[in-house]
């Protein structure tokens, strides 16, 4: 049996006295699309940070395709196949769109160390950067500065950055946060169209987007998992309704 893409064991993260993630165990199969939901402060983003290595957990372990990566730096995890987006757009504002994508393309290889030739001497980088932008509908703006992008376009670029680091497991932190309904649809279509061999773990507040994309849903509340199941099961569960939507 192949090991799961992501396996989290008894993961805890404390900030001072606050236990943001409280002993979470989670397993995501290869090729699965998992959505994490939960009210604000449930620990979703902190859990993400601990899995991808942005934060180191207080206790517990993280495994990627069966390999323990708990002690590895974030950059090593990326090299092993983790990719992520950020809840608050985290793109390179002082660079052009094409340069943003080039940074994603060379990040996991050795070419980021090349000092003796300009980026322009590698036409394949330019070509792949344009392809990556094409994929998220930004090709026309390749040579503009990111400064000129709208909020929604930055979300698209954010996704393009994560995709072009060639991830096997992709972590999306609220990819649709703050977008208009039209933009939401566009992004969720993009995510839906991703190849199925990329394992997807996604935090999403928008129930339509979340339940439309998910194979399975995990519900977090106060740092713990309160339910895991199919979208239908989660929707039907009264406890979830209670914590997530509040008492009606």
């Amino acid at each position, binding site marked *: 049996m192949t090991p799961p893409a992501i396996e989290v064991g008894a993961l805890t993260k404390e900030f001072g006295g606050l236990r943001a993630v409280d002993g979470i165990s989670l397993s995501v199969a290869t090729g699965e699309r998992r959505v994490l939901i939960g009210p604000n402060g449930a620990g979703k983003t902190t859990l993400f940070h601990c899995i991808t290595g942005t934060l180191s957990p207080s206790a517990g372990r993280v495994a990627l395709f069966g390999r323990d990566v708990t002690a590895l730096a974030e950059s090593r995890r990326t090299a092993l196949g983790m990719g992520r987006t950020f809840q608050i757009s985290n793109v390179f504002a002082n660079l052009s769109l094409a340069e943003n994508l*080039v940074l994603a393309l060379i990040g996991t290889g050795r070419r*980021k160390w*090349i000092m*003796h*030739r300009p980026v322009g001497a590698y036409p394949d980088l330019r070509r792949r950067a344009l392809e990556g932008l094409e994929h998220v509908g930004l090709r026309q703006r390749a040579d503009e500065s990111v400064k000129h992008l709208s909020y929604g376009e930055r979300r698209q670029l954010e996704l393009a950055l994560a995709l072009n*680091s060639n991830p096997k497991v992709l972590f999306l932190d609220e990819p649709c946060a703050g977008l208009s309904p039209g933009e939401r649809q566009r992004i969720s279509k993009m995510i839906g169209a991703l190849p199925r061999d990329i394992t997807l773990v996604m935090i999403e507040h928008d129930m339509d987007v979340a339940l439309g994309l998910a194979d399975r849903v995990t519900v977090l509340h106060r740092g713990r998992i309160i339910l895991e199941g199919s979208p239908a099961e989660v929707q039907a569960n009264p406890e979830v309704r209670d914590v997530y939507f509040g008492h009606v």
Partner: protein
Amino acid sequence: MGRVGIGLALAAFAVALTLPQFAGPFWMGLVTQMLIFGLLALSVDLLLGQTGLFSLCHASFFAVAAYTTAILQVRYAVPTLLAAPAGLVAGTLLALGFGLAVRTRGVYFILITIALGYIVWGVLHRWSSFTGGDNGVTNVPFPAVGELRIGSHTEYYYFVLAVVIACALVYRVLIASPFGLSLRGIKASETRTRSLGYRTGLHLYAAFVLSGLLASLAGVLYVYYNRFVNPVSASFPISVEATLMAIIGGSGTIAGPFIGSGIILGLRNWVSSFFELYATVMGVVFIATVLWAPDGIVGLVNRLRAARARRKAL
């Protein structure tokens, strides 16, 4: 670089080539200094302008390289061909050590580099049996390779000019390379570069060492120009001045540090000839830069040109 940029660079090159025809030895000396300190400012800006790290210890690499070359030439009669590279190696080795400061960021990085700079200054100042103390090392000869000997300040000026142009060209490739792009990525968002697979600390360390190498090169050029070196060359104000040169000229550009060096050294020579409070004038210049031209002279020129282009388009 646009057409205007290439035109300006060619014009500057033509002026630089013919300068000794109409400028006297005093002016040639000043211009040589501007080039050398411009190179030091460029080395500071490799960190400041490309990676965002604000280092205040670059006088250390400059001075250690200068002292090494000077001591080898004067006391041990080592030929230039060995003494000059030895200076580069010594300065760069120091940068390999001081580079560990990239484990810190922001104000902590600035503080650590200030402290490291003071250590070097203190050693050069107090270890007088080896460094000559306050008097430093004097009587450094002109550089010579076998029978080839630089015999005048004008000849040395041409040599410095050639080295500076070569450095500018190499620097240009470096910042346009995948490595250079990575540095600008780290400057924009270190968290994002990490999540894309970069070991950002290692990239910054490499940039720090390269920057130290460039500062060392400026130091070796300086000692052969100045013919002597004392602890002042390692002092905190030298590091600050190099940083100000980069900022006033235009951080993140190649021409900027040299323009800044020209302005600061030119003003100092001019103002100090009739006004004691030269430092006050420099302070005012710096405040004016921060207020009205935060991207330096190069940034100001670009902004004015963009504004004119917009007016034309309307």
